[in-house]
């Protein structure tokens, strides 16, 4: 071959290669400078996985740090309908129906969808999850979630409330303090392998901020005692509803609050609204004779009447404007102390007539009626009390004995605490502390004095009268063996839809405190439409007696135990 030809061919090959090299360089240049952002984005999507990190919802503890609401890990079952062959679906539905307790049609509809992810059941029980796992069905998968659970089932159900499927508070403290309990979600960008599986290697991560824990003023033991006794009365007297509040009169701390009918917090979806409602703060009722503590306090504070002043109780029948008042037992002359002890309507109204509507209204407001107590629970109502300008001529014969006013059980608890603690109206509260998961206090809630309603001297004098109610008066069934107590019974007729007072529907109630000298607890018990007995002194006073007796024994033993620990 001629050397010249060889050289030309070599040059041609070189030029061809050079051309392709230039093409490659140009392409690389294009990719690097014009397509890099787009391609890097695609690569990032393939390699990285953005995951939202769920915070742990705060727990709820009672005053002794016993768990009332916690989170437990559970499995949620999902399906990938696209991956399940059509012919297998019938068999899978037949296998899943008995385990999951679901309708066949529901599962058929879910698995029939043309989707790559669909929830079948969220938050399965451990047994259900294990049973489904054993079936080892292709196209079904589990995701871990946390479920809000309540170890005490029904204890303080309306106070604690519940959180929904997404751990968002729906009722009670779970919704009221959701801002503390919820926490803040975090996020992370995790690496994925070639099979798109998540690796625990992260490029970036912001840790979730777990929710804070709540420490309640409620004591599990006191709550249990209160619910146990309320249950007995609720069933014995076939009541439509019932409530009980146990309060520390000196601080306003709620030690127990319960309502009947109630529900299981772990299966709240099965409960109707009537059971979920916190009757103690949401239900309005005419208090009846328990309201006489306000009238008695007002006339004594204003020095219009003293305990020994005598009233003629008209032998059981007394006209006020065009309305005739009756006493449940006819009385002649009674001292004011006896008027309250025997719960004479006529004697109380005569004392209130000396006081006048303006002053009576002033004390009704001072005791906190007609306004919210601002307790840290949702759904509280203010109650109802008309200003004297709107009173009719018969109002002075009704308001002093608890008619024409609407109150809540909580307002009554606050009012009886005024007498028990020496005249101060305290703000009731159920959360005493907000703390983080390490036990550090974030917020401490201290007792709040709203106002002084009456002087200490008046409170002590009324306290002594209420002691007489339990010793000699209508509240004898509230007498606690070995412990002195004070209280007032109430039996209020309910209003019919036509506005008239019912003759067979009553609210029986008892408000009291014990021990008389230095009260440790103030208790309110109300029973709505009890049958066949309906007098507060018969249906509600025994509940007070049993609860106060056991609670005081418990509190004293608790104090003793704490004292011993200090000595050690």
């Amino acid at each position, binding site marked *: 071959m001629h050397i010249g030809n060889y050289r030309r061919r070599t040059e041609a090959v070189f030029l061809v290669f050079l051309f392709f090299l230039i093409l490659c360089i140009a392409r690389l240049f294009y990719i690097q400078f014009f397509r890099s952002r787009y391609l890097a984005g695609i690569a990032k999507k393939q390699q990285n996985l953005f995951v939202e990190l769920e915070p742990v919802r705060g727990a709820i503890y009672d005053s002794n740090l016993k768990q009332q609401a916690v989170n437990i890990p559970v499995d949620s079952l999902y399906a990938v309908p696209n991956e399940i062959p059509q012919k297998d679906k019938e068999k899978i539905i037949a296998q899943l129906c008995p385990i999951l307790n679901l309708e066949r049609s529901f599962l058929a509809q879910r698995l029939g969808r043309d989707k790559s992810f669909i929830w079948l059941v969220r938050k399965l029980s451990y047994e259900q999850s294990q049973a489904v796992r054993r079936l080892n069905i292709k196209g079904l998968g589990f995701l871990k979630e946390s479920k809000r659970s309540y170890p005490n089932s029904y204890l303080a159900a309306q106070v604690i409330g519940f959180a929904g499927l997404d751990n968002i508070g729906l009722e009670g403290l779970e919704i009221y303090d959701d801002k503390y309990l919820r926490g803040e979600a975090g996020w992370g960008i995790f690496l994925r392998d070639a099979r798109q599986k998540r*690796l625990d290697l992260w490029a970036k991560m912001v840790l979730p901020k777990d929710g804070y824990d709540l420490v309640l003023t409620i004591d599990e033991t006191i709550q249990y005692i209160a619910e146990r006794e309320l249950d007995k009365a609720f069933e014995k007297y076939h009541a439509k509803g019932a409530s009980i509040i146990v309060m520390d009169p000196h601080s306003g701390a709620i030690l127990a609050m319960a309502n009947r009918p109630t529900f299981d917090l772990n299966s709240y979806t099965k409960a109707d609204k009537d059971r979920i409602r916190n009757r103690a703060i949401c239900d309005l009722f005419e208090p009846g004779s328990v309201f006489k503590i306000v009238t008695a306090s007002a006339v004594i504070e204003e020095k219009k009447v003293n305990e020994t002043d005598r009233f003629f109780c008209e032998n059981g029948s007394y006209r006020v404007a065009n309305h005739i008042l009756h006493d449940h037992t006819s009385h002649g002359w009674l001292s004011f102390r006896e008027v309250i002890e025997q719960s004479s309507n006529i004697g109380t109204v005569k004392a209130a007539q000396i006081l006048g509507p303006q002053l009576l209204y002033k004390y009704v407001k001072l005791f906190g009626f007609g306004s919210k107590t601002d307790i840290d629970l949702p759904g509280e109502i203010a109650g109802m009390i008309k200003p004297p300008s709107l009173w009719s001529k018969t109002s002075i014969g009704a308001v002093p004995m608890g008619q024409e006013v609407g109150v809540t059980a909580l307002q009554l608890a606050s009012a009886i605490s005024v007498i028990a603690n020496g005249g101060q109206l305290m703000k009731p509260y159920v959360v005493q502390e907000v703390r983080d998961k390490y036990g550090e206090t974030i917020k401490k809630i201290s007792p709040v004095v709203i106002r002084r309603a009456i002087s200490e001297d008046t409170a002590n004098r009324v306290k002594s009268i209420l002691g007489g109610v339990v010793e000699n008066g209508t509240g004898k069934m509230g007498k606690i063996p070995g412990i002195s107590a004070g209280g007032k019974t109430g039996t209020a007729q309910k209003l019919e839809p036509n506005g008239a007072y019912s003759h067979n529907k009553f609210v029986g109630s008892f408000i009291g405190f014990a021990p008389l000298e230095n009260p440790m607890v103030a208790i309110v018990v109300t029973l709505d439409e009890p049958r066949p007995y309906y007098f507060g002194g018969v249906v509600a006073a025994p509940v007070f007696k049993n609860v106060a007796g056991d609670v005081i024994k418990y509190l004293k033993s608790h104090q003793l135990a704490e004292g011993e620990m200090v000595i050690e």
Partner: protein
Amino acid sequence: MKLSKFLSLAAFITVFSLLYVYQQTEIFRLAYIGQKKLAFLDVLLDKNSVLRYNIEKNASLACLGDKISGYADFQMPDNYQLVSLLPAKKKANLKKPASSNTGLLSRVFGIKRQAEARTISP
């Protein structure tokens, strides 16, 4: 650049690259192992929290109270005294009842002077 220098530089870069690749594969291998262990630990932790919750639930006053009131007639009396029983120093000299030595005929036809208390199962 001298060939020997070029070759040593190339060898160094190659070894360094291999080490880097090895390091990356090790990270992923360890990540997989860690992930498996973490999954196992998660299962154990989950079981632990479920168990603790169940203990808490079964030991709760609501549960215990329901069981006591549901299955027993026990009620705490209003007044009660705590007594302690001390072990006796000497064995009590308990005589066997005479009836146990008597035969069938004497038990049937005999006249007993003392009433015998017997337990009866309801």
